[in-house]
Each structure stands twice: as structure tokens, then as C-alpha cells.
């Protein structure tokens, strides 16, 4: 069997939450990366996490398409974002997101495709598809997931990083 779609890192948050999740020393022996997150925040103000590479906080861009269940819109941003429900959301619900990062070791800028959702059986829900870019030619060797606007990542949140090899 080919050594592909292999789990290379994971984290499940324990009691008390964490301020961020960091996957470092990502090997350069694969072709693509796939990141899954299931997240909930510890406070009432956070609705997302930023995904950053190699400890860099700059050179990210994004076009998004969002549907709320009643309206849809498109806009742009300067981050790579996964949704994270806050404590106002229905108990025991978590946002779920998926990012595909092809050719993560190449010397080209890094494209990212993200699908991210909040669904909590309430009046408001959110579903995004995002086209994202890290305008940097370095190979990705580190991924950090941190709240965008305060709070911590809550207990039982989980993150999985898979690697895909094309040969």
C-alpha cells in the first residue's frame, strides 16, 4: 500500500483549554497536506482561528463565499481562517473545517482550499468555502492554530494533520 493519506500529527485539547495548537517539524517527504479541525472557544467573542505557517504572521490572503442559511456573501481577507464556535453556541457543538494544501514543499506561493462550517441547530449558522494563499516560497514545516479574537481553544477540540504522497 502506498504511504499516503497518513496521519502525521494530531491534538485533542484537555481540561482548561489551550491558547494554541502547534504542529512543528512537518516532514518534507510528502506532496500535499490536509488539515482537519473541530473547534470550540472558551469565551463569547471568538468565532475563528487563524492558521499560520512557519511562525509567520504575514503574507496571507483570502477570498471567501459564505452562506448563513438566509443570505450569502463574498468578501476578502488577510488570513487563513477556520471557524470556531464560542460559548454562545449550542452546548457540545463544534465548528468543523478542512483545508487542502497542495505542493507544500514547493518554491511557489502556497494555495490553500478551505471548507469551514458552524452548525448548531440555532437561528444562525455559517458555511464557508475559501480560496486562500500564503505568498511565501518557503516549504511549510510548521502549522499553528490560534484563536483570532481572544479566548482559548476549548476542551474536546481536536485537530488532525494528514500527509498525502503522489507516488
Amino acid at each position, binding site marked *: 500500500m502506498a504511504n499516503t493519506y497518513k496521519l502525521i500529527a494530531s491534538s485533542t485539547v484537555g481540561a482548561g483549554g489551550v491558547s494554541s495548537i502547534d504542529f512543528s517539524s512537518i516532514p518534507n517527504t510528502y506532496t500535499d497536506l490536509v488539515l482537519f479541525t473541530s473547534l470550540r472557544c472558551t469565551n463569547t467573542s471568538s468565532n475563528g482561528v487563524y492558521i499560520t505557517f512557519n511562525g509567520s504572521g504575514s503574507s496571507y490572503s483570502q477570498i471567501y463565499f459564505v452562506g448563513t442559511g438566509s443570505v450569502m456573501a463574498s468578501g476578502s481577507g488577510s488570513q487563513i481562517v477556520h471557524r470556531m464556535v464560542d460559548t454562545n453556541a449550542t452546548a457540545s457543538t463544534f465548528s468543523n473545517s478542512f483545508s487542502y494544501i497542495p505542493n507544500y514543499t514547493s518554491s511557489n506561493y502556497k494555495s490553500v482550499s478551505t471548507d469551514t462550517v458552524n452548525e448548531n441547530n440555532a437561528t444562525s449558522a455559517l458555511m464557508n468555502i475559501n480560496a486562500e494563499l500564503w*505568498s511565501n516560497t518557503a516549504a511549510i514545516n510548521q502549522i499553528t492554530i490560534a484563536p483570532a479574537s481572544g479566548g482559548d481553544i476549548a476542551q474536546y477540540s481536536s485537530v488532525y494533520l494528514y500527509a498525502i504522497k503522489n507516488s
Partner: protein
Amino acid sequence: MAAGATYEPIATTTLSSNQNDITFSSIPSTYTDLVIVFNGKSTNAGSSSNGMRCRVNSDTGSNYSQTNLNGNGSTTSSSRDTSITYFEFGEIAQTDNTAPSQNIMHIMNYANTTTFKTILCRADTATVVTKAIVSLYRSTNAITSVTLSRDFGTNQIKAGSTATLYGIAAA
């Protein structure tokens, strides 16, 4: 993981020169679904993007239809086409675009010979558009080849672009 091979790379290419198309042929029927991942640009001049097209089994008939969702950073849109001679595999960045396009295609039950084939695509060019596309190939033939092209015309896929075909096994 299932006992059989899954998410198995069947074929891959990194273009060493500009090419009219990328064709994956002689696709084995031993998987359940197919996934194709494309990352690259076209030879079209400019810094925007154009549609990227796909045919299966070299079928040039009007046997395809599609519906898409699009967001370009300011507006949303949806459109559809019926009885067309190809389906869209998302967008492909023009040659001076700083963001290479990435398109991911899922073809369900590609080897069955009793139903038409449904194809799901997610397509992103971070400086231009994000898309989701569902397409239908109205044929009961098993899919044995897939051809990716900028436009089945004069424009080409740029050197350095990559495409990989994976097989997904249910068991």
C-alpha cells in the same frame, strides 16, 4: 483504514513544458471513487484566471451538465449549463497571477456501468475566485480516462503545473 489500498496514487505529472492537456488514461476499475488534484497555471496572458475544462473517455458529445457557486471577493453568483461538450474543473490562473489555482475533483462510482456519473469539484484561485461545482456525465460507461485542459483550444497548461490522480477504495 480499510484493508485494501485507498487514496492510492494512480498517476501523477509535473509538466516540464507547456501542454495542451493532461490525460490520465487506462484508469483501472478496481477503486470506488477517483480524486484528481491540480495545482498550476495556464499560458493565458494576464493576472486573472479562466475556466479549466474536463472531458472523460475522450467523449466530445453534449453529454455533460453542471451547476456552480462562485464568490469573487465582492459578489456571489450561481449558474448552470446543460448539454455541453465538457464540464468545468474550476479555474486556472493566468500566467502572471501570483496565486496558482488548485482544483480538487471527486468522481463517485466511476467504474459502474449502470448509472450516470456525478462529479464534485472545489476550485480556488486566491486572487480571483472560490468555487464549488457539481457536474454530471450522462453515460453509463465506466470512466477509463480523464482529460484536463484549459479550453480544448489554443491555450495551454503552463509548465510546472502538477496533477495527480488518486483511487479511493471502499474496502
